[in-house]
């Protein structure tokens, strides 16, 4: 089930809120667990078993890690947790990539397994690992209540599209959390804004990207318009999901980490990745980059560490080599910035720094989204006028005119304009009691209207 659906908004959500808030404290976690399993099973009835199994295995492994702390057996238990978790992820997500690669590299004829990818497996696997590794490192106490642990792993707000909530950041809230009108109201704010970002902006501007890639009359202008539209689509879609997750979490008494912080206002790739999918970056930093030695190693090893992390960051986004190339592309850019470009960037005017960042990010998105090298090169060729197409044509101008308000709204939403306005005006009583509730009502009404009358509501994370 996804948040931006009628069945979530008007069936699941009211039911779970009702049950959760009328239940006594001791039943709140079991209710969230059962509700979350139902939420997952709604679209993935079979793979819910995999998630439960994975949770159960890691529950016991964490107990062993704790029980044999200080001895080698604790390490074996952690190794088992890492191997089992990554093996499941690897099998379901990457097996066919391996088969295809071997077949094309060695001319063999192994049949692909054609396994459907269990939704959210990349997210919950990383959450599980954050738990067992942190128990091993003695950063958090082991969770002895299987229901509490299973609820942490399966909790529906962050289950299928993040943020990747590390166990230690919610450990205390799992067993002891408070609820307040203020927190619920704050949750409503984040949820409604997230819903509108996904349904009103991302879905709508995604149609522009679709027009650009399916056009029979390409032009340079349309190629730029298209990739700009995709940049907005993936940002508003992904950050919208994160907002909804954070908002739902707050309604239920959890504080999840932020996942996006206006990435498109960045002035370097380094800054961009501090603002984009922050929970993934932090996970790789804490559980891979630093254990590999981080930058406290020789320069060669540091380069190796960066490239490993970014190769895997890319591959995490989907079982296809273009994602790995996309990751390495950013890894190399980060290295270049660290070695000399950052100093150079500091010396040039700010608009040029923004232009540099946006250019490399847009090129990155073509690699991310188009998949095959032929398609990527052809689209980049269109963007830079290397394929002999028109500079602009009727279709490009028409699509620009048709989407101009949306593009302006998306641009305004990509900078902290509305957030600052919100923060500044919220202390006013009229804003809080009248303006904002009316605004939320409007957004809910319009978002529902779009869900009722729309055939375009993609779930972009089916490959994650």
């Amino acid at each position, binding site marked *: 089930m996804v948040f931006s659906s009628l069945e979530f908004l008007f069936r699941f*959500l009211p039911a779970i809120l009702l049950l959760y808030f009328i239940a006594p404290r001791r039943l709140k976690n079991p209710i969230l667990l059962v509700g979350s399993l139902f939420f997952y099973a709604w679209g993935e009835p079979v793979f819910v078993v995999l998630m439960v199994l994975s949770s159960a295995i890691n529950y016991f492994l964490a107990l062993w890690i704790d029980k044999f702390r200080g001895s080698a057996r604790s390490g074996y238990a952690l190794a088992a947790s890492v191997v089992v978790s990554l093996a499941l992820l690897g099998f379901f997500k990457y097996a066919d990539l391996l088969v295809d690669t071997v077949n094309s590299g060695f001319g063999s004829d192994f049949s692909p397994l054609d396994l459907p990818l269990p939704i959210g497996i990349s997210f919950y696997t990383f959450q599980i690992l954050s738990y067992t590794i942190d128990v091993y490192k003695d950063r958090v106490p082991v969770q002895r209540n299987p229901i509490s642990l299973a609820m942490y792993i399966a909790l529906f707000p962050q289950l299928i599209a993040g943020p990747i909530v590390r166990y230690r950041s919610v450990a205390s809230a799992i067993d002891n959390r408070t609820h307040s009108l*203020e927190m*619920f*109201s704050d949750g409503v704010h984040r949820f409604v804004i997230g819903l509108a970002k996904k349904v009103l902006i991302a879905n709508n501007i995604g149609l522009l990207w679709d027009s650009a890639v399916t056009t029979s009359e390409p032009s340079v202008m349309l190629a730029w318009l298209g990739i700009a539209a995709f940049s907005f689509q993936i940002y508003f879609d992904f950050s919208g999901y994160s907002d909804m997750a954070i908002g739902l979490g707050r309604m239920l008494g959890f504080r999840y980490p932020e996942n996006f912080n206006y990435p498109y206002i960045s002035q370097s790739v380094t800054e961009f990745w501090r603002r984009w999918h922050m929970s993934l970056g932090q996970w790789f930093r804490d559980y891979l980059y630093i254990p590999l030695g981080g930058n406290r190693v020789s320069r060669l090893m540091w380069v190796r560490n960066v490239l490993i992390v970014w190769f895997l960051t890319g591959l995490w986004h989907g079982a296809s080599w273009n994602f790995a190339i996309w990751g390495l592309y950013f890894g190399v850019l980060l290295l270049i910035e660290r070695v000399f470009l950052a100093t150079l960037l500091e010396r040039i005017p700010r608009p040029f720094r923004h232009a540099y960042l946006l250019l490399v990010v847009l090129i990155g998105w073509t690699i991310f989204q188009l998949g095959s090298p032929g398609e990527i090169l052809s689209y980049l060729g269109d963007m830079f006028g290397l394929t002999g197409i028109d500079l602009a044509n009727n279709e490009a101008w028409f699509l620009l005119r*048709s989407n101009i308000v949306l593009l302006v709204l998306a641009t305004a939403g990509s900078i902290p304009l509305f957030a600052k306005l919100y923060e500044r005006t919220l202390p006013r009583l009229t804003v809080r009691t009248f303006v904002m509730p009316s605004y939320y009502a409007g957004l809910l009404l319009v978002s529902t*209207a*779009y869900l009722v*009358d729309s055939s375009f509501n993609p779930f972009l994370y089916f490959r994650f």
Partner: protein
Amino acid sequence: MTHPLKNAYLPTVLVFLVFVFGVAVLSILGNDEDSSVLERRALAQSPSIDFAAILDGDFSEDYATYLQDQMVVRDDFRFVKSFVERVILRKPENNGVYVVDGRLYDKFYGIEELLISRAARLINSIAQDSGSNAIYFSTIPTKAQILDRDRFLLSDQQIITDAIRQGVDANYVDLMWLAQPGNEELYYATDPHWTTPGALSAYKALASALGFDPVDTYEFEIETDTYRGSEYGRAASWSIGDDTVLLAHNDSIDGMSLCRFSSLEERKCFESVYLQEGENTMDAYDVFLGGLGPIITIDNPSSSTDAELVIFKDSYAHAVAPFLAQHYKTVTLIDMRFVRRQLVLDNFSLAEKDILFLYSTSVLNTDPQILN
């Protein structure tokens, strides 16, 4: 003491809870509808609980469709979305329908060369196999051809007409002039079809080409002045007024009778070419000959000749057929989307009849089953 702002959070929470619970409760209590007249389609019904369907995910997909179709005040939500698209986001279209000066226009974009050449080949093969030496064809432009192609994303429908003309060896009757600026009234504002005046204009051109003096004496009856066509349902725009459906009468037309065949043996006959209770009652345009059907015949007892006309057609022909029938003893309308080619050649003695292929550019460009 309570902080003065503490209770100020309540309105936000209440708005959210009232909306989510309110829509949920109303949609659970509301009665399910069988169909949507506005959208001209059957609505999804509650899926039955089936273990296999639950396991393979079909149930959840069907339930999502059901909820979307049966959402409480669904039409109002659709109008809200259209309002936001058109008024706030300033988009020229909603659901593929342009809204221009209070009229609706199906977006016509993309030329399907393969489908068009296939249609031309099939028209030609029927024409050749028919044995008739009075074969005519025409293409009907959709009203989007009226719009400025520099302002809107539209294909030139003349390309389709030219391709059909090139591929078909028969007498061409030009109707492309129908869709030119100033002729907006020849089409309904809310439906793709031509109005009765539009069909009358087309009839005059067709009758002249077929060798007749067009009849020009009619009285017009208002069938309805609250017609909302299929484009209205898709555009869901508040700013569009209703259409008027006119029925043309004179002694000749009023004396005609109509038979609708569901097979060669089974037919239903009526004493008028206008069927107020058409078989497809969702659309007032179905008053003309009773709506789509595989084979429809019109008998004209006042005809002074024994001549017969066979029209291979889509729904546009329904409004023009009564006019043409004034010059024939019988007019047979065949919709090749529902009838096999060989059955027609074997049963309709085409050699002795006038034949007219009358298709809209939109059907030629999109329907792979136009002539199966």
